């Protein structure tokens, strides 16, 4: 047997993270759970080590016989997922500890989920793609059920599990039809494979496969018409898990989605209208629904649906010749930073207030903690796409990519709906700054949360002013 194509180094980040997960389990067992407080450091160490390997790759060759890639998309996906982990793990552990939930299981399942996400971002063939989707999904189902102390979170987990399995069925069936008609499992070779059967009867099977696969992926990113589970699952799951689902998992799903669509460029006339309709419907429905939510967590859930619409718009652009995924790659990082921080802030503010994420909890936040209120405004305006924050740059890149690819109508719709989004994001800001507090007394952040919020805020500003920083890094290291 020939092992020259193995090149384990290409997969080091994934190996380090999953290894971290295994180590956490082993240490938990070895110390009989007495040292669980230290496990978060083990986990973070493995994440940081993985980050370091991403930034200083030993190799840029694909590994595992072409199953694991290290191109800009893979690099960006990995970094985005790892960044989300760094932001979320400490908060999640604190949450678990305060509610007497199992920390070790939380940590290792998070790390396994992250392994799946990273594998998804760097998947070179359809089998790895599917398995990666399943790894991340199953770990998240378990996390949602595991971390819940309320019935609603278990129901959310079960709903997510059943709906997700249903979608996985479509995804797998689509992959089977697609790879069968294209004669290959290699994602990059799908395009040429399909070009061979175009014009013959087999192309109908291939198109059916494309549609089913796209439907499965649309479910994973929470786009209309496959979004119905989002509200219940996102608002029912424990906030730390919701944050993980709506940031890292979504980023990874978009990375995999983008890779597939890029490969299907040769049959773009088949899927571009389809993705376009979904993108348009997602932008409209997500933004307008978010507008009337009186619950901060639900508002964030629907706003993440809306963002999926913008990202789909960016993905559509790769259907045109010569377009790359740069806009999508850029969009994801600030989106993940802002959303991760906002969910954690939501948990904190809700805990100090009504306990059920009412927008009213934000009244007078500026009086209780002006820095937090300021950063909240920064993060929300970043998501709304105010310049000079990175959210604006992301939207600008996506819209200009859409315009270049000839989807001007959708770009206009995107700009229009992002005006609507401003109303949505402004409401908590107005509550925070222009209302009298209902409860008095300062609302102090613990060190971990303050770190997250500051890092996210600074990242949003930095990426907005120097978008090249991130894009050059992606382009320079991966290629």
């Amino acid at each position, binding site marked *: 047997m020939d092992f020259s*194509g193995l090149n384990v180094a290409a997969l080091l980040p994934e190996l380090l993270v999953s290894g971290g997960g295994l180590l956490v*389990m082993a240490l938990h067992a070895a110390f009989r759970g007495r040292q669980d407080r230290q496990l978060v450091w083990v986990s973070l160490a493995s994440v940081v080590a993985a980050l370091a390997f991403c930034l200083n790759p030993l190799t840029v060759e694909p590994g595992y016989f072409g199953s694991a890639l290290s191109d800009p998309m893979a690099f960006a996906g990995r970094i985005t997922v790892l960044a989300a982990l760094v932001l979320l793990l400490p908060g999640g552990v604190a949450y678990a500890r305060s509610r007497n939930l199992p920390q070790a299981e939380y940590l290792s399942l998070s790390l396994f989920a992250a392994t799946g996400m990273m594998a998804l971002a760097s998947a070179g063939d359809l089998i790895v793609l599917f398995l990666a989707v399943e790894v991340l999904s199953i*770990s998240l189902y378990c996390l949602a059920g595991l971390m819940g102390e309320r019935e609603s979170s278990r129901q959310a987990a079960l709903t997510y599990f059943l709906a997700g399995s249903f979608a996985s069925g479509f995804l797998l069936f689509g992959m089977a039809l697609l790879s069968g008609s294209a004669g290959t499992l290699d994602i990059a070779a799908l395009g040429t494979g399909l070009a061979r059967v175009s014009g013959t009867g087999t192309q109908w099977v291939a198109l*059916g496969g494309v549609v089913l696969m796209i439907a499965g992926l649309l479910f994973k990113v929470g786009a209309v018409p496959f979004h119905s589970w989002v509200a219940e699952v996102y608002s029912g799951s424990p906030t730390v898990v919701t944050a993980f689902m709506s940031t890292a998992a979504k980023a990874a799903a978009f990375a995999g989605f983008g890779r597939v669509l890029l490969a299907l460029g040769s049959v773009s006339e088949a899927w571009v209208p389809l993705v376009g309709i979904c993108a348009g419907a997602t932008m409209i429905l997500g933004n307008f629904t978010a507008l009337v939510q009186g619950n901060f967590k639900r508002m964030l859930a629907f706003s993440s649906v809306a963002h999926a619409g913008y990202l789909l718009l960016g993905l559509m652009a790769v259907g045109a010749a010569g377009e790359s995924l740069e806009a999508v790659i850029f969009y994801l990082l600030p989106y993940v930073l802002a959303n991760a921080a906002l969910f954690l802030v939501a948990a904190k503010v809700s805990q100090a207030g009504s306990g059920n994420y009412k927008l009213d909890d934000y009244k007078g936040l500026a009086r209780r903690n002006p820095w937090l209120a300021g950063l909240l405004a920064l993060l929300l305006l970043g998501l709304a796409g105010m310049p000079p924050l990175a959210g604006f740059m992301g939207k600008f890149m996506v819209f200009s990519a859409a315009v270049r690819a000839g989807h001007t109508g959708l770009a206009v719709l995107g700009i229009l709906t992002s005006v609507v989004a401003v109303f949505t994001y402004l409401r908590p800001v107005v509550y925070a700054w222009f209302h009298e507090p209902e409860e008095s007394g300062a609302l102090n952040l613990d060190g971990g949360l303050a770190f997250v919020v500051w890092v996210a805020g600074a990242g949003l500003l930095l990426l907005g002013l120097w978008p090249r920083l991130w894009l050059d890094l992606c382009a320079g290291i991966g290629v």
Partner: protein
Amino acid sequence: MDIKTLLELMFGLLTVASAIWVAFTPKLLHAGFSLLFTFFGVAGLYVMLGADFLAAVQVLVYIGGILVLLLFGILLTTAMPTAELTVGGTRRGQGLALGMLLLGLLLLAVFRAGWPLSMNALPETTASDIGKGFMTTWLLPFEVASILLLGAMLGALHLARRAGEDQ
């Protein structure tokens, strides 16, 4: 119609019919046993397609392992063997129509397709190729699958334990 086609049809029919039974019987235990025939039918189809190793794995792992575990689970849990499931209800018509619509659309693709035949001879045995594949080309899926199983096991164990502690 030669014997091969006849057998293929038979296995296909067995798979589909038993699967329908799994989906629609209200008795959990019946559903479990019916699944046996589904797995067996699939194994038969594998044999007909020349995938001998896969057929063996299907019988050993799915029938011998997973299904037996499932049935043990049902039988050993107090309330389960006699549990009645609600199936269908008000949405049965809706679901049926939708299912037919999806089936129709996929059949449209199936009948439009030309289904060209491969001229290559079938391999004599597949086990060694599959084995080599798992060690080389498909090494990563193999490894990712292990993480998948580990994560699922971890979560399932813990969820079960917590639910047990609650009561």
